[in-house]
């Protein structure tokens, strides 16, 4: 055999083997039939893996609900919804990689990435890639960059942090606050909104300390804050640090200082840290934990039965994103034209709200960028091992924030 023929022979065999050894999803795509793929970019590993676990399970339940009803109706035909998961590892670069991967696979709608630093990274590219995504970041600045293909159906820090500042200053009459926040966009937004609002309500932020996202040793920062003698300490960090922060804060600052947790701090974290240690901690509770709708009860029960854990806001919000964007696809008549899906999103939200199918915490009223306008949100304090309600609002005007 001549050399050229030999080369061609080997090349053909290599091509053949390459084809049969191709990644499974290539084969899956060719044999999937009429399923519609929906992306889920979740933090399955990394410091925020706790949230990612809830996202994965919440979106799974949403997809099952949709498929039990026959799937998504596109132009008169029913299609099953298939979730395509991507682990963004709580890293902005991976989140961008995930978005690109979705676009390459022809997936133009997804839930997540959910976290502020990841959303900031992705919003530089998703319009160019034509991928619309739902995001439960509570940082308002994420949604104020003019990006048309990002949707939010949950509260933002103007509400949660504003209410925390109001409660500390006006309800509990505390005037000197210190902040301990992470260096991500989320932490910086917490610092900005708390400082602004606490001052508005007559208080003063006397010190701010920072930490890197993967830190677990906060003793130097807490000792530095102790020197300033604050009446209250506001945390702006992820749930992964909550337990550690609570314990270390109590050790250095004592129990008299009121601890205020951000929207990632839940009863779960207080229990893990120990209820005795967590005494005198204020945490926000929003929509999902306040409104008791049939849809919420059903979600809660399904989550508990299936995953043997208590459902959290994160999973509920991710669940809503799947329902919302899927319904928007049906109205728009497309699953790949992200801009048409966006145009249909407002109508989709109103329909789902009217039917009481959304459970993540947004109830009624929407801003033009798709962000929910009305929420139920409260501040609660742990006293004698139980959460007591300090304040609840449904409108920012009630506390003079709008």
């Amino acid at each position, binding site marked *: 055999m001549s050399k050229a023929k030999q080369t061609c022979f080997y090349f053909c065999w290599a091509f053949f083997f390459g084809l049969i050894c191709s990644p499974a999803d290539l084969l899956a795509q060719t044999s999937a039939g009429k399923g519609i793929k929906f992306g889920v970019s979740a933090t399955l590993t990394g410091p925020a893996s*706790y949230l990612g676990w809830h996202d994965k399970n919440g979106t799974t339940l949403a997809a099952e609900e949709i498929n039990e009803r026959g799937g998504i109706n596109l132009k008169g035909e029913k299609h099953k919804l298939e979730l395509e998961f991507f682990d963004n590892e709580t890293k902005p670069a991976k989140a961008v990689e995930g978005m690109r991967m979705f676009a390459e696979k022809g997936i133009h709608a997804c839930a997540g990435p959910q976290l502020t630093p990841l959303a900031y990274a992705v919003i530089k590219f998703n319009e160019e890639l034509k991928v619309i995504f739902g995001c439960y970041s509570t940082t308002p600045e994420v949604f104020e960059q003019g990006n048309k293909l990002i949707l939010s159906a949950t509260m933002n820090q103007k509400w949660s942090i504003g209410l925390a500042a109001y409660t500390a200053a006006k309800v509990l009459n505390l005037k000197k606050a210190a902040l301990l926040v992470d260096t991500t966009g989320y932490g910086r937004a917490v610092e900005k909104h708390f400082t602004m609002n606490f001052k508005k309500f007559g208080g003063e932020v006397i010190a701010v300390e920072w930490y890197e996202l993967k830190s677990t040793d906060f003793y130097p920062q807490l000792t530095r804050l102790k020197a300033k003698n604050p009446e209250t300490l506001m945390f702006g960090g992820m749930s992964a640090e909550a337990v550690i922060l609570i314990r270390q804060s109590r050790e250095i600052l004592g129990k008299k200082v009121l601890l205020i947790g951000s929207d990632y701090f839940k009863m779960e974290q207080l229990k893990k840290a120990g209820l005795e240690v967590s005494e005198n901690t204020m945490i926000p509770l929003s929509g999902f934990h306040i409104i008791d709708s049939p849809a919420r009860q059903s979600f809660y029960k399904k989550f508990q039965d299936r995953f043997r854990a208590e459902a959290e806001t994160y999973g509920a919000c991710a669940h809503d994103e799947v329902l919302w964007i899927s319904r928007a696809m049906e109205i728009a008549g497309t699953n790949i034209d992200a801009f048409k899906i966006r145009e249909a999103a407002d109508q989709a939200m109103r329909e789902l709200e009217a039917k009481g199918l959304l459970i993540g915490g947004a109830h009624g009223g929407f801003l033009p960028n798709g962000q929910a306008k009305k929420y139920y949100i409260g501040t609660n304090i742990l006293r004698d091992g139980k959460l007591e309600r300090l304040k609840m609002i449904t409108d920012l005007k009630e506390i003079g924030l709008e």
Partner: protein
Amino acid sequence: MEAAILLQQVANGLVIGSIYAMVALGLTLIFGILHIGNFAHGQLYMLGAFATYWLVSLWGWNIWSSMFVAMGLTALLGMVLERIAFRPVRSAPHINGLIVALGLFIALENIAFILWGGDERTLPSPYATKMITLLSISLTIQRLLVFAVSILLIFLLYLFIQKTKMGKAIRAVAQDPEVARLMGIPIHRVSSTVFAVSSALAAAAGAMVGPIFCVFPSMGLIPILKAFVVIVLGGMGSIPGAIFGGFILGVAESLGAGYISSEYKDAFAFAALILVLMVRPTGLFGKE
């Protein structure tokens, strides 16, 4: 008040420094005989913490027995890793050993993620929330125990290295493996023993900090990075260097974060390293 804050920061630094010293000691022991930076050491710290956690949570053992058993289990694991991963590449270029170590680091962390998920877990300890105040320094008993246990283990290691036959053999192999072999010292047994001892130290460190910093699969990353800084700062392969380097690093970090800026806390470790290397390139206790 200023003096109280300074004392508190120094106490914070000594506690965290004792952890760095314990992890770095294991690392420097391995470096001394194999001349390989064992990145997987950070995962042995993590696995020791998880072993302690499971023994306490699932079987209700007390934290001390759990820690000792975890040290034993991790020591065994260290010996297995030495046999199957590091011994085959002992004669190969150092880069091969480094790649093996990196591979183990990634593999062990991801196995932990698959088995136990990414959630942080609080290692129950009766000492974690009990407080004492000494000379205006606030400490939980757990943090005091971290410091005390570290000192005790460092002392026991010193006795082992200086006063026992195996310790003498380890020093001989660290000095010159070829000559040690000619003297009839069983190199493989020495290597296994070093891995067992260093793994046990890492596991003890992980078990002691579990109640303070929580237990999760990626908890080994920061300590191993700091441990590498410590062994370079103290002198590669030097045991006194690892001990003093650990405490110097812990206190430098704490004081830097406390009096300069907390935002760049981790940078102080590297700043201290650069300063020491500028004056003494082989490290504080390194040989010329």
